[in-house]
């Protein structure tokens, strides 16, 4: 029966909606938004990523130096890799009603890397330091987004020989919203830990794979500028 209840329903008047578990909100003061952050998976020795390696989302606003060196640009993560401005917290005055959580891998990484990350990755999303609100293998956190396409499977001419990989079907309409919203204010802390408990082998010793996690839903932010 629960699945038949709409997460967002009609409000009492125009310009208002009812969010199940939260209450009535005004459309003009909230948006469909997301908070996202990127970590950079790379081998710890040779092509091996050592078992026990842990990556933390939403905690670090800086790129590792090895990424800066390889990709150029500034130390600070750019707008395409995060929209966090305060480690582990929303900016002052912001509120987020999380209705969707997903993890994105780049579509053009090697099959070896896609297999390893999606097979062995385990994720925990935590509130206020220790409260685990969601956990499981990485494939349980389907992205719903990403490049779709047909790959030229028999080509042998270098870059034309592409594969296209995603964490799930890149169709956000095919991904239900959470039935239990997660309400985050600027007073709460949050983080997610991606762990690889076993040694895994990546495609090259210098490969860097940006993996992005997002918390999407209803976002309330003071007007900027």
């Amino acid at each position, binding site marked *: 029966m629960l699945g038949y209840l709409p997460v967002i329903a009609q409000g009492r008047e125009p310009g208002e909606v009812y969010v199940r578990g939260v209450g009535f909100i005004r459309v003009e003061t909230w948006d469909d*938004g997301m908070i996202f952050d990127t970590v950079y998976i790379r081998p710890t020795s040779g092509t091996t990523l050592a078992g026990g390696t842990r990556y933390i989302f939403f905690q670090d606003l800086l790129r590792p130096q090895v990424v800066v060196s390889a990709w150029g640009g500034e130390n600070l993560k750019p*707008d*395409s890799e995060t929209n966090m401005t305060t480690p582990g917290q929303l900016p002052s005055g912001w509120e987020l009603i999380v209705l969707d959580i997903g993890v994105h891998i*780049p579509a053009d990484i090697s099959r070896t890397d896609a297999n390893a990350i999606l097979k062995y990755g385990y994720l925990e999303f935590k509130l206020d330091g220790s409260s685990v609100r969601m956990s499981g293998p990485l494939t349980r956190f389907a992205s719903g987004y990403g490049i779709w396409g*047909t790959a030229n499977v028999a080509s042998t001419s270098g870059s034309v020989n592409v594969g296209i990989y995603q964490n799930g079907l*890149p*169709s956000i309409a095919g991904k239900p919203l959470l039935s239990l919203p997660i309400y985050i204010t600027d007073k709460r802390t949050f983080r997610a830990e991606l762990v690889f408990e076993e040694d895994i082998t990546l495609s090259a010793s210098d490969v860097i794979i940006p993996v992005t996690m997002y918390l999407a839903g209803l976002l309330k932010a003071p007007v900027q500028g």
Partner: protein
Amino acid sequence: MNEVRAVSPREVRTTASVVPGVVYIPGIGPLALEQWVEDVIYDTVTLPTSISAGQTFEFFTNISGKSKWETNMTEAGKLPEGWMMWVVRAGLELLPGTDPDDAFQIVERSALIFKTGVNKVHRHAPTWAWPIGFGMWGDHAVDGTTADNTIVQVGVPSPSAVRNLLLPVRISNRLNFRVEMVFGRSATLSAETPIRFYLYGFISKPVST
């Protein structure tokens, strides 16, 4: 001019399904079918072959000299006088013929930020999180050796594969709006590449005389 109610909200809310000519949209209210259309506003930006980290491109603010396949804007950064729009969906389309390696760089190395007014951010997300559900679909020759045999798109090219924004965004008469595309990493494309951004929703226009 932007009157949206054919009857009172309370009346529509309670009788929405039986009031001819009126549709009640949650979060918006009643829309009179004679006054509102379901349509798109779109703009195309052509990316250069060399893009540096931090470089920004803008949709909807530069329409000079563009053809209808590129944009249907008639005024830079604004809807025409008297128009109003509720945006219920927004996203990017890669145009037919886009090289797959170029697509990967464009989509995986940038973010899109939808803004109104001076600097009100409505949605900031990586470009891969902006599907619109449009675009070319097809098959390819499996023994092909050229990029022409590969088709790529931001998400599955089916409108039903994309969900609406959880909350609509209102662009009122004369409100500035734009979508910024920011590259976090440099990109080197094989050719200049046009990409098209859509705002999809409900539009109220003055009756033409």
